[in-house]
């Protein structure tokens, strides 16, 4: 593999269909608690969706349903044409195509950064170790921390860890990336470096669903903003319209609280 001076742009894996994610009439309960009520959302390939809403509104639960970290009880979820069912093989197949970045990074503390990145390509994609190493170093350069490859996650700052987590997801060459409050657990000065990485990713044409309170990111990157409250999608709109002319009272209230 030749090593270009500036890392090349990555080309996200092509989706088989135009619709990346199709959620149709989805409901979810935690015991008696109705967390998600009649969620309908269609995400086209290459679209960047930002999901916001007050805490407890079900936004994290919703994107966790997309790669089956949570099970939905009613309705359908189609990922690139494949329906999510209880079939374990299907679930694994979908998880291979959907990358996820968590609020608390969830890196594997007993493995080095490089091992964190190559684990899934080697064991899930059956890639030879050398190729996996090359790809991992490629993405570490992309997130600008190739020099940390042989450290353990515990030796890195929060921002660096989150960039490693993004690189880890990218190493599986996903078609869709889910971000669950990726900057909420970071110190303020580290939010920027993670957001920059995400903006780059968006510029490369990755299909992204981002749960975040970073309204600047939403304005800059999102094609659409989804506002959720009490387990329902209240409003979906372009960022310009969403911020300038929110349609619903709850949206207005939320925006007034979050944008002082």
């Amino acid at each position, binding site marked *: 593999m030749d090593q270009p001076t500036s890392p090349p742009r990555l080309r996200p894996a092509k989706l088989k269909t135009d619709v990346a994610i199709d959620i149709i009439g989805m409901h979810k309960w935690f015991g008696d608690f109705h967390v998600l009520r009649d969620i309908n959302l269609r995400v086209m390939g290459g679209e960047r969706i930002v999901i916001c809403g007050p805490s407890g509104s079900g936004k994290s639960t919703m994107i966790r349903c997309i*790669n089956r*970290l949570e099970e939905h009880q009613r309705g359908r979820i189609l990922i690139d044409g494949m329906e999510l069912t209880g079939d374990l093989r299907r679930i*694994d197949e979908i*998880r*291979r195509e*959907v*990358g*996820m970045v*968590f609020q*608390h*990074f*969830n*890196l*594997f*503390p*007993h493995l080095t950064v490089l091992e964190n990145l190559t*684990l*899934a390509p080697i*064991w*899930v994609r059956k890639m030879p170790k050398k190729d996996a190493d090359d790809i991992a170093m490629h993405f570490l350069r992309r997130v600008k921390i190739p020099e940390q490859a042989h450290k*353990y996650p*515990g*030796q890195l700052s929060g921002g660096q860890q989150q960039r490693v987590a993004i690189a*880890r*997801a990218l190493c*599986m060459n996903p078609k869709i990336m889910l971000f669950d409050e990726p900057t909420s657990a970071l110190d303020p000065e580290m939010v920027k470096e993670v957001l920059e990485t995400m903006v780059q990713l968006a510029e490369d044409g990755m299909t992204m669903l981002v749960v975040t309170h970073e309204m600047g990111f939403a304005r800059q990157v999102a094609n659409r903003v989804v506002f959720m409250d009490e387990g329902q999608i209240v409003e979906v709109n372009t960022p310009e319209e969403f911020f300038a002319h929110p349609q619903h009272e709850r949206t207005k209230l939320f925006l007034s609280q979050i944008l002082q």
Partner: protein
Amino acid sequence: MAAHTPSGTSYVRAQAVAPLPPPLVESGAIGWLRTALFSGPLNIVLTILSGALIVLIVPPLLNFLIFDATWSGADREACLARPDRPVVGACWAFIRERLGYFIYGFYPIAERWRVDAFFVLLTIGIIWLLAPTARRRTLGAIYFFVVMPVLACVLLLGWPAIGLPEVSTTQWGGMLVTVVVSGVGIVFSLPIGIVLALGRRSRMPLVKLFSVIFIEFVRGVPLVTVLFMASVMLPLFVPEQWSPDKLLRALVGVALFASAYMAEVVRAGLQAIPRGQYEGAMAVGLSYWRMMGLIILPQALRVTIPNIVNSYIALFKDTTLVFIVGIFDFLRTIEAARVDPKWATPVTSTTGYAFAAIVYFICCYLMSRYARDMEARLTTTHRR
């Protein structure tokens, strides 16, 4: 400017103050005494009490074990008190003469080299597997878990075809039995325990039910009962010629018993792993077994090393209970030898028990020491 020069202000000291005396010694022998032994009234009292206890116990112990001890002799005469030797300490002559019995039991004397060879093979395996600097550990694992057990069976049980006469397990005894029983228990309890622990956390109701019943049943009965059931009740249901060897039955009993405890130890470790680790592993597409084998268990076992070794030490000592089904383990051979009229003296029993205590202590201490070193090594290489 003038205000800053000392010459114009008489109340400013012209010379530097002498440095303060250094604080009370905190390092060195005296410093250590002061901080560790005499740092407060309570500590002073405790230090004095402990000192008194040491003075009370250690000299008589040393006298008995070393200074008054009998080191050689042919029979009880050597260890009896005589007018010219009123105080008699430990009768090490007894231990020396019966050492072969303590190590090999009734194993035929001409064949004892086979047991020695087994001990050598075992030691090589243990060092290969556990030494931090050992290379090619995969090969070592194959040796330890496949090659060595086969060799050991051939060596110890015999194989007349290649000129090794058969030795029935009823003739085994002493340290050999203790090592075999605890070794089998140690080697089998961890994998079985891991499977049971995973089973107990499984979402599949049947697997979970079986694991819970097995663990709770085995933990609910004493080891003695398990051994009794294995050696007395099993033959009642199985025809004579099908009934497995007595030692084998005890081995299975001990291994299953230890597994149930190990399962709970491993489960505690699994519970210490945050949910995010499972989610991180699932999100990159790892299947259940890969997630467990690559992500969860390596971390879970690491945090439970102290508990695992704790179980191993307990197991090693619990193996003494096999005497109850008529198997002569190390402690039982000492028990049998100490009542031998040839060595009947007032100090024989004490010497025998002292010897047993020393041997068990060395074995257990080595285990705990190794575990501590390994923990230290793991925390320095995998800083969180």
